[in-house]
């Protein structure tokens, strides 16, 4: 596919070369073509990836702020970091945040910005479930699912060099445009196959970190029981495959491979105590 574009570019150049009158226009087109091709072949630098992810995170936080509970946020950050330490990208600047919304959802932007909504947190039984969901999101970052989705669609109008330059000039109009395009991916969702892949990787990360590997399946079972017509799950159901289908595929994939990690700790007591303290402190935001 990519090779085809290169060939097409070369043929275009060869075909148009004999007409000098068109040389000026031609150069512009070819530059753009070269940029687009380069952008697709060359992976984005980690620095650019983090800048982009940070910009999208700022937008997500503009849509829903953090729960104003420092203890809860710190707890989730320590847990998320512990999970990320068991992946191929432990050194990313990992950030975790609980968003103050009753919607049930979770997001991960490129570069290691992971968010879970308070609405989803309130659905969980124990720390192993939280670990499972965070590990699913971490997997999206490790595998660059959102980034690849953006490159295939949202960023096509930005040539490679423009993209990189704009990402280094935070606050510029170009930067905002790119970040807005990137944020929209979270309104549309990732590829279904990316979701299944993140499920399969997430359970392994949670088990490597010492948790009961069946935390994520436990939460998927809970999500499967929620009426999809409920407003709180509208966006999640729109952007993710059916949780019952995810649960079945995931359990099949885990069979014979991760069952022995089903008796690792769920850490239910600490989770209960964190949640009870949070519930006692929490003041719903006035709107």
């Amino acid at each position, binding site marked *: 596919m990519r090779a085809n574009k290169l060939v097409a570019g070369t043929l275009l150049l060869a075909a148009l070369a004999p007409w000098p009158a068109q040389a000026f226009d031609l150069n512009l087109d070819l530059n753009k073509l070269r940029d687009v091709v380069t952008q697709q072949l060359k992976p984005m630098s980690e620095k650019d990836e983090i800048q982009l992810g940070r910009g999208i995170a700022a937008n997500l936080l503009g849509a829903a702020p953090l729960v104003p509970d420092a203890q809860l946020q710190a707890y989730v950050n320590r847990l998320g970091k512990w999970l990320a330490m068991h992946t191929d990208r432990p050194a990313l600047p990992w950030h975790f945040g609980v968003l103050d919304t009753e919607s049930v959802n979770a997001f991960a932007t490129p570069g290691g910005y992971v968010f879970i909504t308070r609405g989803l947190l309130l659905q969980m039984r124990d720390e192993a479930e939280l670990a499972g969901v965070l590990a699913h999101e971490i997997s999206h970052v490790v595998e660059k699912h959102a980034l690849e989705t953006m490159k295939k669609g949202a960023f096509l109008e930005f040539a490679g060099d423009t993209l990189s330059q704009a990402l280094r000039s935070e606050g510029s109009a170009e930067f905002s445009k790119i970040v807005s395009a990137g944020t929209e991916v979270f309104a549309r969702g990732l590829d279904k196959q990316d979701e299944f892949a993140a499920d399969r990787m997430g359970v392994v990360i949670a088990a490597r970190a010492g948790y009961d590997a069946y935390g994520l399946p436990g939460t998927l079972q809970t999500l499967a029981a929620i009426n999809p017509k409920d407003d709180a799950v509208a966006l999640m159901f729109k952007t993710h495959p059916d949780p019952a289908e995810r649960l079945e595929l995931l359990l099949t994939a885990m069979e014979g491979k991760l069952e022995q990690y089903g008796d690792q700790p769920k850490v239910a007591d*600490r989770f209960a105590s964190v949640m009870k303290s949070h519930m006692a402190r929490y003041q719903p935001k006035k709107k």
Partner: protein
Amino acid sequence: MNRSGINRRFKILVATVGALLFAVAYAASEVGSTRVDVNVLSAPKTDAKTVGQLSANTRVDIAERRGAWMRVKANGTTGWVRLHQVRLGTGPEKTSSQGMKMLWTAGQTGRSGATGIVATTGVRGLSAEDLKTAQPNPQQVQALEKYRANDASAREQARAAGLRERQIALLPKEQ
């Protein structure tokens, strides 16, 4: 025995009964329904002995979760079934009009389970439209930075819960 001794014993009794009631309420929290006809097994293993059968749409009490399995009680039978054989709640599949149950609520000391409040539609949510029109919030990004954890604190929190690291290969990319 003097009066204060009796009083003390009574208080201990009340505290014990209270603790037991709390433990029961805390544990016996979830109900479900079988999604298909299932064999109930004597242990959480595929080669365990079958101790009973439940037809589809039988209400079960979920007594315990262990890995891919749950121990359920129904129609006088107790035993193990697989996670995906049971849907939570008692309504028909995906048409439950009960809405979303919050497992954690402010007025309770623990998970509220089946007695939990029911969230109504129209909650303060996060929609696709909210994301499309979102404007950056730099102050919130700064707050996020503040909560970042380092390796040492992450390791310490894991150690405190008795988590042990494992070397585990990733699952195959495709089924």
